[in-house]
């Protein structure tokens, strides 16, 4: 087995991973930074983000506002210390991206322009048309070529975190093209492996978003925090789940039911103004909008389509010019994937799983409880999203905390003593077990287990949850885990570029992370942010103003622990949307 020595290993080449790699290399250019990713970095899921990234920019905005929007958006489950750090460093990181070439939208005088997003008092979303994630990712990827210290290992699939005596030693990976195992050895490892949306059936996520990092950390004994908070995005194309960005609504698009009625006014998001009002109606937060859809559906006021219930996202009044200038990708995607010309017709949409608020537990320095292991980006729970993420906070999170993770990991590597002893001792048994999967002659088809998992997650852990359905899902997941353990029969027995094998390994992680989600949701007997229980409809600050922690217990179901929420300046209040907002000035 080949062993590659380096100082810092970054697993994941998305926005968070690339920013971390650059930060580590900038901290000390002599550090050997290994960037390991299962896809070439520019294929990472960050590429699909559309709307933009938030940072306080305008004179009428303030760090306090951004803080408040984030904390109330997160239904007071945010770690406020982390939010304070986040809002304070957001702007400089977006400026840095600008210096590196990101083509942010501009005003006529050459200054960067900002737009509205749901749940914001003042517009503060920097955007690059509706391809913000694409531009951020390519800017970071291309800029990373400037740093000779960063050595990329593209299409290496990480299968295990190697830990020895409570210390990180590196990771075990498979070189996809050849199927060979490779050990990456280093004192510090950053996980930036992205979210886990693919455990649900209908989702906006790319095929690679399978929660690998969460699964690996979890298996290594690190807790997964706040996993019950899975954000549904209210506006996805039917069938494919392709996202129609919130920026559509930020630009003034409206949602109507089958009667052409702007139904959001019935769910506490009004009043219905002739003009857009911040944090009201279509500019309300995502959880509320997705929930309103569910109620409309129950009332039978959604459109019935062959691909299921839908509502209309109407952009027509924006006019062709604005649509093509600000939302070109949306117009193109609606046309290609749904055959809808959004200049002339409304786009039928429905909610889809979008974003994991929780993840690998870290503190504000991106440190996990395992010395040497760091996490950043969607796979991490640094604590800024609480129970519901505010749109456009995530792209900013990638660069703010990606940098922190990279710097901290570099710092750790510079100070860490080199450990003696071979890492092969940990790696070899793992490799042997995985190779065993190629030899199974008995077992089920991979797709069967995977599809049952997705369906069950959607049924039990979807927009609205109940004890009964969650228990059913928990039971199902346990059953699937044991069926998986009995054996999956692969058609592909070779090693070179065996994607079926890799998918099977992903499925192992997905099943375990799904359990963390379902059990955390089962135990949280209240409704908060994106976690809505029909059997516990109220927020319960007395018993549940705390983070959940899912801890792995081998083949058993996870143990759910809790930890306190850090509150610095804002104590919980009722979340208000609609009502007192003032008029939006659309630029």
């Amino acid at each position, binding site marked *: 087995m080949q062993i590659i020595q380096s100082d810092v290993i970054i697993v994941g080449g998305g926005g968070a991973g690339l920013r971390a790699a650059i930060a580590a290399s900038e901290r000390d250019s002599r550090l050997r930074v290994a960037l390991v990713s299962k896809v*070439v970095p520019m294929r990472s899921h960050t*590429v*699909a983000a559309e709307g933009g990234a938030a940072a306080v920019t305008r004179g009428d905005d303030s760090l306090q506002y951004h803080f408040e929007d984030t904390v109330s958006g997160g239904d007071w489950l945010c770690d406020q210390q982390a939010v304070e750090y986040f809002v304070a460093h957001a702007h*400089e990181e977006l400026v840095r991206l600008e210096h590196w070439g990101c*083509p942010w939208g501009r005003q006529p005088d050459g*200054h960067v322009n900002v737009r509205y997003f749901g749940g914001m008092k003042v517009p503060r979303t920097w955007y690059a048309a509706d391809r913000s994630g694409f531009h951020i990712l390519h800017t970071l990827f291309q800029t990373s070529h400037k740093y000779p210290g960063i050595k990329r290992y593209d299409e290496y699939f990480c299968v295990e975190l190697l830990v020895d005596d409570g210390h990180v030693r590196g990771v075990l990976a498979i070189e996809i093209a050849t199927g060979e195992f490779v050990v990456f050895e280093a004192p510090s490892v950053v996980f930036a492996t992205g979210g886990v949306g693919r455990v649900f059936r209908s989702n906006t996520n790319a095929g690679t978003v399978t929660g690998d990092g969460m699964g690996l950390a979890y298996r290594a004994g690190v807790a997964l925090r706040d996993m019950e908070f899975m954000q549904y995005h209210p506006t996805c194309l039917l069938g*494919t789940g392709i996202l129609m960005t919130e920026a559509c609504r930020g630009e003034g698009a409206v949602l109507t039911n089958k009667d052409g009625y702007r139904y959001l006014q019935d769910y506490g998001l009004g009043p219905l103004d002739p003009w857009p009002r911040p944090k009201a109606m279509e500019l309300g937060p995502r959880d509320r909008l997705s929930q309103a859809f569910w109620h409309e559906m129950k009332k039978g006021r959604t459109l019935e389509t062959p691909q299921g219930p839908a509502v209309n996202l109407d952009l027509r009044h924006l006019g062709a010019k604005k649509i093509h200038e600000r939302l070109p990708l949306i117009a193109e995607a609606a046309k290609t994937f*749904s055959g809808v010309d959004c200049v002339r017709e409304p786009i039928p949409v429905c909610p889809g799983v979008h974003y994991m608020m929780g993840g690998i537990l870290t503190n504000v320095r991106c440190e996990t409880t395992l010395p040497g292991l760091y996490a950043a980006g969607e796979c991490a729970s640094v604590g800024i999203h609480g129970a519901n993420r505010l749109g456009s906070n995530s792209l900013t999170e990638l660069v703010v905390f990606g940098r922190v993770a990279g710097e901290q990991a570099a710092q750790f590597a510079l100070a860490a003593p080199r450990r003696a002893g071979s890492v092969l001792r940990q790696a070899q048994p793992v490799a042997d077990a995985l190779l065993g999967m190629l030899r199974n002659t008995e077992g089920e088809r991979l797709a069967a287990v995977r599809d049952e998992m997705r369906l069950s997650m959607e049924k039990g852990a979807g927009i609205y949850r109940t004890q009964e359905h969650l228990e059913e899902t928990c039971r199902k997941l346990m059953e699937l885990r044991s069926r998986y353990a009995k054996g999956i029969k692969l058609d592909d027995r070779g090693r070179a570029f065996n994607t079926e094998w890799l998918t099977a390994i992903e499925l192992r992680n997905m099943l375990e992370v799904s359990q963390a989600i379902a059990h955390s949701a089962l135990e949280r007997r209240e409704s908060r942010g994106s976690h809505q229980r029909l059997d516990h409809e109220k927020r319960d600050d007395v018993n549940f103003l705390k983070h959940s922690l899912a801890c792995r217990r081998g083949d058993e179901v996870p143990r759910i622990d809790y930890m306190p929420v850090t509150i610095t300046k804002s104590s919980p209040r009722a979340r208000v949307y609609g009502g007192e907002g003032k008029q939006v000035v659309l630029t």
Partner: protein
Amino acid sequence: MNATNGKVIAIECLRYDPQTDDAPHYETYQVPFTDDMSVLQGLQYIKDHLDGSLTFRWSCRMAICGSCGGMVNGVPRLSCETFLRDFYPEGLRVEPLTHFPIQRDLAVDQTDFLVKLRSIKPYIIPEAPKPVTEGTFLQTPQQMDEYYQYSQCINCLLCYAACPQYGLDREFTGPGALALLHRYNADSRDAGKAERMELVNADEGVWGCTLVSYCSEVCPKSIDPARAVNQNKVESTKDYFLRFVAPRRNG
């Protein structure tokens, strides 16, 4: 997978397994489909239900990550935005992007492109370092328009599969990388043009292109890479002759 309305289409795939094969062969699969199914979804159906060993790359399934390029009936396409209904009832043939070495089935080796991408210095080389505290550069919408189109490249490599000159001579830097080179040269924040002209001016630079322009035809993001390449032939020619008139620092 959605319920099908009884239609079945034949998808013929190139198969090549480096562990057992010396040359590729073709295999045909019968795939039930609905009108909203893409070629990618057809391949996924095959992988899930018919033959788990069929190998191909994909990720975003929304035409932005650039993973899923292949030849569909001989034309370079993104399989996620090419629809099965357009090939019914004749069926279709799917092959890996041409001009690239096949790793396995529909997956090709993209290393050559990644090396070329590095060679064009794909990052802003500023006139002088600018601290973040100074805020952003000013850039008017018109200055942005100079390079914006070329910044849309998703690195899908369809243009490389379209370019016979690249197929005939792999030394050629090729349309995609050159479009990005031009993207940086045309950016008002960048001062690295002189450095990049060294590559442009070399035989491997723009000179491998004979303006076939099929690259621009197949580009899914309408980048017109042929324009980036050929505009730089003029730039290189100016650079060639003007150095006699007004020699530059790093000429």
